[in-house]
């Protein structure tokens, strides 16, 4: 029996926690609910800690780390939250690279946590060691290696702050195994809200706002184009307020699709190589071009020396590095468009531009006659991609989230999908990552609370990440998959037809029986080959609870038109192959 006095001499036991537990504490403090990942040797202590938190953190076990990161991207793009990924060292980490590059170019907030070998083994070519920090530097907004448990909390706080603020992007934290295992005195997690060397958004300059207002007020043929910045800034209402007051017709990049409802009277369609004719042609006739949260990608601008040379250009962007990067700006409006759009709206006079808007409508009806009607409502012949999307629109009425992969079907979805809701067009825009849609769709389906999620994928893209059907089986995420199957790598084939004298070099791709494959994974599905079956099949697909796969055979050699041919200016857009001569 010990006396009270001797007790006082024994120091109170220090409560300890591991680095792995610190990761969990951080994720909960950051309000993370879903993690996409795959375990392995160097991240085992984190997974061990996760085992005690499964009531608060849902981990989705993917079939390949690329699937994890694309799923996290889909999840982040739909929810607006930061996507979280776990992967182990070496191959686990290198499998994230495509997703990191995709998330960086498409400004998607992600925090990726990779395990790393013990700190003393770094640089020794240890088992599953790879130099993840240096490999990922060009494809991350920020990355950092942590070799001690005490650094984990502060590093994760920085990671979440950097990923989600300013122009969002992917962040990677590489945590050595010893740091995950190490026991340290219990540490509280403090969120980061300031980094002295990091300015998430530039200061809004009133002189530029005033100059922009003056330009807009004087404009006779103003035109507004917007990109994903509107979605990322949550500035959909602010955008609508501006265009409705100023009467400016608005067109969108594929990353901006969904920020403005398809049916809005000032929505004049899609920009870019396979966009609508009107916004492309009239880019070169407007007198003031207001660009909001978009980065003048080459697929949007075509030849720069033939792009909007006649117009005064107002560029609203949160990232100062985007100003003048591709297109010389007349007035740069730096800042988050959530803040800057209302400042413009306040200053501009209420107007309408009926005759100018009429020009868009005239060109649109021409395109409708030559391209759209034939594509969406063919009377005979094989099914077309556009009619599948059109019939889907008929059923969803625009109340859906569409995820697309990369290629012809992506252009069809972006051109024709009717969308009423923001954050409802999920596609790999900047990087053009085939294989994106199945895992991204899975993440989107987990993030979507009300809207059905439909992933439209080509027969090439689906085979790049088809292993994620396993994840779909295990999670039963209610993802509806439509494979637009033309037995070709369609977009490459189209280019070979148009620019390489029909030399179809390795674009003929065979497919497994997708419905049987889905069945093997316990996922219901149907094959559609006839026009008469299409609507019923789509209706069934949407009515089913849980995942579903539709394999639709479409015309083998359809081309996507209109098209701004390579090396041409936007106003040289053509409506058909015959116009290309």
């Amino acid at each position, binding site marked *: 029996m010990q006396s009270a006095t001797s007790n006082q001499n024994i120091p109170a036991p220090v409560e300890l926690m591991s680095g792995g537990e610190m990761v969990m504490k951080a994720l909960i403090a950051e309000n993370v609910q879903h993690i996409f990942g795959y375990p392995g040797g160097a991240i085992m202590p984190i997974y061990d800690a996760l085992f005690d938190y499964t009531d608060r953190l849902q981990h989705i076990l993917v079939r390949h780390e690329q699937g994890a990161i694309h799923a996290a991207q889909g999840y982040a793009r739909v929810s607006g939250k930061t996507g979280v990924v776990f992967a182990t060292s070496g191959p686990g980490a290198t499998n994230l690279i495509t997703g990191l590059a995709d998330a960086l170019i498409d400004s998607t907030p992600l925090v990726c946590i990779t395990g790393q070998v*013990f*700190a*003393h*083994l*770094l*640089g*020794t070519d240890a088992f599953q060691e790879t130099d993840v*920090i*240096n490999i990922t*530097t*060009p494809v991350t*907004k*920020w*990355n*950092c*290696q*942590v*070799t*001690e448990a005490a*650094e984990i909390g502060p590093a994760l706080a920085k990671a979440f702050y*950097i990923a989600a603020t300013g122009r969002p992007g992917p962040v990677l934290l590489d945590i050595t*195994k*010893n740091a995950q295992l190490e026991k340290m005195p219990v540490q509280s997690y403090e969120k980061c809200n*300031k*980094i*002295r*060397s*990091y300015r998430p958004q530039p200061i809004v300059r009133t002189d530029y706002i005033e100059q922009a207002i003056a330009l807009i007020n004087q404009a006779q043929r103003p035109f507004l184009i917007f990109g994903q910045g509107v979605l990322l800034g949550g500035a959909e209402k602010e955008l609508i307020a501006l265009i409705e007051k100023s009467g400016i017709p608005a067109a969108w990049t594929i990353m901006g699709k969904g920020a403005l409802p398809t049916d809005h009277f000032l929505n004049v369609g899609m920009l870019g190589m396979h966009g609508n004719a009107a916004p492309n042609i009239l880019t070169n006739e407007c007198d003031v071009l207001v660009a909001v949260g978009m980065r003048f990608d080459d697929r949007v601008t075509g030849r720069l020396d033939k792009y909007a040379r006649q117009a005064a250009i107002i560029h609203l962007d949160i*990232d*100062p*590095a985007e*100003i*003048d*990067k591709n297109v010389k700006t007349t007035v740069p409006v730096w800042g988050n468009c959530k803040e800057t759009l209302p400042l413009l709206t306040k200053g501009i006079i209420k107007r309408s531009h009926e005759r100018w808007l009429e020009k868009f409508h005239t060109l649109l009806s021409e395109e409708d006659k030559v391209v759209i009607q034939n594509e969406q409502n063919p009377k005979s012949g094989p099914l077309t991609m556009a009619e599948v999307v059109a019939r889907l629109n008929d059923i969803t009425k625009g109340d859906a989230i569409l995820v697309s992969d990369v290629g012809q079907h992506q252009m069809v979805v972006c051109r024709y999908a009717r969308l009423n809701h923001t954050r409802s067009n999920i596609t790999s825009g900047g990087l053009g990552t085939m294989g994106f849609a199945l895992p991204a769709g899975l993440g989107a389906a987990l993030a979507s609370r009300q809207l059905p999620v439909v992933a439209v994928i080509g027969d090439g893209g689906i085979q790049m990440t088809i292993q994620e059907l396993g994840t779909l089986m295990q999670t039963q995420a209610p993802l509806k998959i439509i494979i637009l199957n033309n037995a070709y790598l369609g977009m490459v084939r189209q280019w070979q037809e148009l620019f390489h004298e029909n030399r179809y070099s390795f674009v003929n791709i065979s497919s497994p029986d997708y419905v049987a494959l889905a069945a093997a994974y316990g996922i219901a599905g149907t094959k559609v080959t006839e026009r008469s079956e299409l609507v019923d099949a789509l209706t069934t697909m949407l009515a089913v609870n849980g995942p579903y796969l539709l394999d639709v055979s479409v015309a083998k050699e359809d081309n996507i038109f209109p098209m701004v041919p390579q090396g041409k200016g936007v106003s040289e857009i053509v409506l058909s192959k015959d116009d290309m001569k």
Partner: protein
Amino acid sequence: MKSEITITVYTENQVGLLNRIAILFSRRKINIESLNTSPSELEGIHRFTIVVFEDEEIVRKLARQIEKQVDVLKVYFNTNDEIIWQEMALYKVPADIIAEKVKVERLLRENGARAVVIRKDYIVFETTGQREEIDSLIARLQPLGLIEFVRSARVAIIKASAGFHSKLLEFEQQQPGPMLSDNSYLGRNEEIFTM
């Protein structure tokens, strides 16, 4: 039109940041002519001085990309007439030629060379100046038996502004910089048991 442009970058002192900055150049296939990185006047803040031969418009875009990096505080870029710059060089010359040839001694003296080390077999001289001055001295020492030569990267001070100094002090007052975290486990393999 291409010209020599000096880029000055203030950064946090972080492992890996040199690579993050360097790849912005290599990605665009811009060659770095000279690179100096050293602590600035404030602890924890580093200053890069990078010289490129490039079009000013391209450097402007590049500078914005550098400044966009999370750990970068500030970027300046200047043409040669906007800065004062120096490079340092060391020359190892055989001792006997100095003794034998008066013109070598005169040459060194004319160029303001200072003897850093004097040994029986060789002498190491140092000069500080602009690239052309150093180039011309090497050219003249070469035929006379120069043993070894090394030149430093450029260091430069910007003429115009009051400098970034006061801004730096402000940064430091607002929020201390992050601690430099390096790997304290390297070389300790034998103390540590792993699976």
